[in-house]
Each structure stands twice: as structure tokens, then as C-alpha cells.
């Protein structure tokens, strides 16, 4: 299992789906571990009742069906399926509405879904998902990207209330890829994934949604920044180590162009 995770850490992020299915066939007895530890690009389904798209993940799956956060229905339909309690469903509905606005303000498009369920120790777990296609044929407003995908998975475990405080544990994963392509610079592609955790004890006076939302906003900002500054920066540093830029571009002597 450790070796399998070692392979996933090195293999190209764009090939993680192929790599995972290969590992699943080599290590069938580790399949649940692999599926829970390896993040995969998010899939989307259309909720026929609301006409809206929603995101699929382990947290809204029951058997082979996935529950839509919009209509609370499973597709394909499923009898005796699991649903959150009505109280939690109320928070889930509100979270989906607010998170869609948050998503629109930061992403100018994309799809979002929030799922909640009760956990074993009197608290609950919430999963906030965002998927954005930023390519020029998708929802990239500026049209710079030949290909561009951003998948965010935020899972928050909320502990039981104690003296009007609750413990929040957020685990966030961002998977992204972007490719630009033009005549003069060829194809330029960056892709990757990072995962981070954040723990906080917060007063529940402002409500769970406010607390979770703030944590996610802070985390997304941090992750975006470290991808941009640290991760992309390191690959740029590497390029400049391989071939240091010289200030003066040497021009072709005109005689050679004759």
C-alpha cells in the first residue's frame, strides 16, 4: 500500500485515473484503501428534476446511485437509500445555495455541490465540491486556456457542540491542470494536486455554515497561492537551473539569413 501511494505521488497528475485503475487491478484487496486515499477528478451528473448539474463523490453515493443536492433524489433511482436527517438536510440546502454564490464570485462559472451526513460521534461531516472548466471552450472568460480544469474537494468534520464551541477539521484537495498553446511558445502545461489540513475551534454563535465557509475560503486562498507561488515557482526555478536565462538575446548575424 505504501509503495502504491509512492507511485501515485510520482506519476503524472493527468494520468492518475489510469494509474489508479491499474493499481486497483493489481491490488484488489486494497481497493477501498486506494479509493479513499487517492483523489480522482470529479464527475458530474444532471439532476433531471431541477435541470441542474451536480458533482459525484463517495459522500453522495449509495450503491451505484448518486444523490442530487438540488432535489435530494438519487440517480438512477434507488429504494431504501440513505438520506441526511431533515434538520441536516435544511443546513445542506442552505449551504448549497450560499456556496453556489461563493463559487460564482470566485470562479465566474463552474459547478458546486455540498453534501452533509451525520457521523458516529454526535457531530456531522460536510463535503463541499467545486468543479470548473476554465478552457476557452468551457467557462474561461478570458479565453487564455486551451485546456483548464480545477477540482476542489473540501471535507469538514464538525465535532459536537461543547459550551457553544465546536471543533472543525478541514481536509482540502485541489487538482488542477492548465494548458496554453500558441505558435510562438508551443504547448505549456502545468498540472498537479495538493492536499492540506486545517483545524479550528470556533464559537457556533455565527452558525456552522459561516464557520465552515470562512475556513474553506481561507484554505482555497492559501492553496491557490501556494500552487501559484511555490509549486509553479519551483518548476520555473528548475527550468532556469537547466538553462539559465541570459539577459541579452543573441541575434542571428544578418549574413546567415541571406
Amino acid at each position, binding site marked *: 500500500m505504501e509503495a502504491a501511494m509512492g*507511485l501515485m505521488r510520482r506519476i503524472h497528475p493527468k494520468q492518475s485515473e489510469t494509474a489508479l485503475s491499474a493499481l486497483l487491478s493489481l491490488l484488489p484487496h486494497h481497493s477501498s484503501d486506494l479509493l479513499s486515499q487517492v483523489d480522482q477528478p470529479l464527475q458530474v451528473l444532471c439532476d433531471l428534476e431541477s435541470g441542474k448539474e451536480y458533482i459525484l463523490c463517495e459522500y453522495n453515493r449509495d450503491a451505484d446511485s448518486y444523490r442530487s443536492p438540488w432535489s435530494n433524489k438519487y440517480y438512477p433511482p434507488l429504494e431504501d437509500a440513505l438520506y441526511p436527517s431533515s434538520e441536516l438536510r435544511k443546513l445542506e440546502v442552505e449551504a448549497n445555495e450560499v456556496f453556489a454564490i461563493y463559487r460564482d464570485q470566485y470562479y465566474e462559472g463552474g459547478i458546486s455541490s455540498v453534501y452533509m451526513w451525520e457521523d458516529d460521534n454526535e457531530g456531522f461531516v460536510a463535503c463541499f465540491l467545486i468543479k470548473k472548466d476554465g478552457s476557452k471552450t468551457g467557462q474561461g472568460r478570458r479565453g487564455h*486556456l486551451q485546456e483548464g480544469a480545477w477540482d476542489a474537494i473540501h471535507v469538514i468534520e464538525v465535532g459536537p457542540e461543547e459550551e457553544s464551541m465546536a471543533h472543525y477539521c478541514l481536509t482540502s484537495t485541489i487538482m488542477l491542470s492548465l494548458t496554453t498553446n500558441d505558435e510562438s511558445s508551443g504547448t505549456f502545461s502545468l498540472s498537479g494536486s495538493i492536499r492540506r489540513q486545517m483545524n479550528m475551534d470556533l464559537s457556533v454563535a455565527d452558525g456552522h455554515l459561516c464557520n465552515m465557509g470562512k475556513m474553506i475560503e481561507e484554505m482555497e486562498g492559501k492553496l491557490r497561492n501556494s500552487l501559484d507561488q511555490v509549486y509553479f515557482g519551483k518548476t520555473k526555478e528548475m527550468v532556469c537551473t*537547466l538553462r539559465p536565462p541570459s539577459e541579452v538575446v543573441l541575434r542571428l548575424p544578418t549574413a546567415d539569413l541571406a
Partner: protein
Amino acid sequence: MAEGDCELNEKRKREIAKWFLLNSPAGEIQYIAKDLRSVLNDDKVYNEAALEAFALYNKSHFICLELPDRSGEVLVTSYNELDEDEFLDPRTAQVAIVDHVKQVCTDMRPTADEELSSPYIEEFRCALDAEILKYVAEAYPKGICSVYCVKGKDVEGPGSNFEFVVVISAVRNSPQNFCNGSWRSLWSIEFKEDVQMLEVGGELQVGAHYFEEGNVQLDAKHECKDATIFQAPEDCAISIANIMRHHEAQYLEALEASYSNLPDTTFKDLRRKLPVTRTLFPWHNTLQFSLTRDIQKELGIDK
């Protein structure tokens, strides 16, 4: 039946093993191999896959191996491959015997006469090699290069066309900093006697991998074309080296421009740094959204 299943299984396993090895990032095949071996838990399948995959990987990555007598280095490419494990080093007129899986050069032998180019071709090749060496030394801190004749090596004198390939490979592995990278340039030069022209084509490929608490990879690729006139060997060499220097420097600039466009333009199409409102999201006051929505509904302008 059970036996058939088992055979199929082995074939599939071997394919998976080869896939992992061939898709190893630059400089990381040995790490992939180690993990793969323990995942497979089947040395027979692993060894068969490794035998095939390492040779392909080594050649496509232009890996560079030290000669056993420490007299220099030899590149492993499909352009100087004499046999599965024999690679020509035209600069020293030696042939390196290579162990693909261990990625070492185990032995060397002098070249046979028929493996070398004719003296006429060799004059062009040597002149170009000297110019490229100069250029690579000034542009790449750790660059290795070589010039191979891939067409017309037996041409004895003026009147026939021939073709060279220039390979430049620069690798930097720094696993302690969780970072590896490679720059590969492949230039083909067609010497067209009949039209007195040299046609030059370049394929530049750059990769970098940073994997401290994450996994981020850069893949960049660029192709370019140019031409110059057919001249004496030394003049051809200078022209070609200038063309390469010019295009590679331009490409590096384009790469830097791609990086500097990231924060404010390219990346913005995925996620903005700040919301369109330019202030943090009002989590304290999300009630306003449902109020607005209710009003919109009442006014009948709900989307």
C-alpha cells in the same frame, strides 16, 4: 481454464508494469521501479517488463551515461543506437555497451570502420560538433550534446544529400529537494546539396516535477523550423549553431512569459484571487442572498 486466466493475468500485469515505467517522470524511473516491484510482488513479470521498458525510456529521455574509463559521457538515443545495448559516441569513435535496467555503461569498444561516417561527412559532423559543444557549454550548466549522421553517412563527396541530428540533454535531479527536471532538444539538419540549402527543424521539450507534499508537473514542448544556405563545413556549423542559439533563447523567453502570465491572466480563468466583488465573501451575512432572491421571485425576475 484457470491456467488461461493466469496467463492473461500475467500479460496484463506486464503491460501495467511497462506503463508505469514508461510514464516515469524524468530521472525517476528507478524510484518508480522500486515501488512497482513491491506492488507487483512478482519478479518474473517485473524483470520482463523492465527489460522492455527501460530501453525505451532511456532512449526517449536521452539519458546520459558515464563511460567506464571515465573519459566522457555517452547519450542513449535511437539516433546512435547500433544494437539493443550498443550506442555510438562519434566524438571519441567508441561504442558504449549499456545495461539499460541498471542505467550504466558496462563496457566500451572501438568502432568498426563501417560504423563510422565517410571522411567527407565526418568533416561536416566534426565542425558542427565543435560549434555545438561551444554553444552548449555557454548555455547549459550541465548540458550534454552530440551530433549524429542519420542519413547518407557513406556519401564520399559533393553531389548527394545527407542528414544530421543534434541532441542536447540537460538533466537536474535533486530528490532531496523533491524536484527533478529535464531539457531535451532534438535538432534535425537536412543538407540538401541539390538545392544548396540546409533545412533545420527543432523539437524542444522541457519537463519539471516538484513533489514536496504534492505532485506538480510542467510539460512544455515547442517545434520550430528554419533554413540556411549550404556552405563549407565550418560555415555551415556556425550558421546551424546560430540558428539553434537563436530559437532556444527565444523559446526560453516564451517559457518565462508563460510563467509570468500565470498569476493574473491564465490562472484567473480557473479561480480568481479575490471574488468579483473584490472583498472577501460575506459569510456573516448570507441572509442577504436569500432576501434578494425572495424579492427577485416576487418581482418575477428570478432566473
